[in-house]
């Protein structure tokens, strides 16, 4: 759901960029003070870039890919990890691959890096003890993706690019399914695999299973 240039007027894009910037700055504080496993972070960022290219077909002649903010937050134990990593990935995609616009970079970071990550991560935390790590990471990642899609539809409605109601309906419908087959499934798969194969590479906070 990378918004291209032209879909949001500059004045509105600037507001999203400012909001995103507040979160990005705070995420650099996390990287500076609360995190030290730099190779783990860089590896995860590379993996998220790669998996974002894997579009999975869904009905209606459509496809979708994982975005990965919730995965980063769960694995590194902080929603700021998702903001930080998605920012790096989205910047590279916009500057080098024409995937997502330059002027709307803030909006894309806000949707996939901030909204998706925070909602998904806190959903995961709330559900973890009750339903277990696999189901909680699936649910968190799914909800995060759907929320990001609806936020995107709202922004594009404010921009006059999509009609509000139909925009929400179609963006919601596609991403409910993409969330199931891509975001939810892959997040749960990666989280449970890493915790089983090598939990010791994760920060203590991510390993807590009360």
């Amino acid at each position, binding site marked *: 759901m990378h918004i291209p240039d032209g879909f949001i007027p500059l004045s509105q894009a600037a507001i999203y960029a400012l909001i995103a910037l507040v979160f990005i700055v705070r995420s650099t504080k996390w990287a500076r003070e609360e995190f030290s496993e730099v190779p783990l972070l860089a590896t995860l960022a590379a*993996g998220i870039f790669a998996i974002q290219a894997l579009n999975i077909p869904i009905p209606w002649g459509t496809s979708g890919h994982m975005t990965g903010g919730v995965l980063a937050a769960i694995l590194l134990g902080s929603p700021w990890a998702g903001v930080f990593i998605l920012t*790096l990935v989205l910047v590279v995609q916009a500057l080098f691959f024409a995937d997502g616009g330059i002027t709307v970079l803030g909006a894309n970071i806000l949707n996939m890096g901030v909204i998706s990550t925070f909602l998904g991560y806190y959903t995961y935390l709330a559900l973890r003890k009750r339903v277990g790590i696999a189901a909680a990471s699936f649910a968190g990642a799914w909800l995060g993706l759907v929320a990001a899609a609806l936020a995107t539809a709202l922004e594009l409605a404010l921009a006059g690019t999509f009609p509000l109601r139909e925009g929400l309906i179609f963006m919601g419908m596609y991403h409910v399914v993409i969330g199931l087959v891509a975001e939810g499934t892959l997040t749960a798969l990666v989280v449970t695999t890493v915790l089983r194969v090598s939990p010791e590479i994760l920060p203590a906070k991510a390993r807590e299973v009360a």
Partner: protein
Amino acid sequence: MQRRYAVALGIAFLVAVLAPFLASSNPDGLEKTAEKFESAQDREAELLSSPFPDYTVPGMPGAASEVVAMIIGTALVFVLSLGVARALTKAG
């Protein structure tokens, strides 16, 4: 520890190399939604000519072009993340 990261990074590059062959070429959810609305037509603007448009290397043929673009992108994200995170950690 280092070895685990190497394995994980290897998996990332494996996904990157396989993605061009496995990925669906259907429009994504946003593109498909945009196709439905008159108001979204002809709005898309390319403001910056990117070096690897649509994850391809210009002038390179077929699948090789996409594979190389994905390898470059994955390496770029890895190095950039390493650099930025390291600079921040040192500053803090």
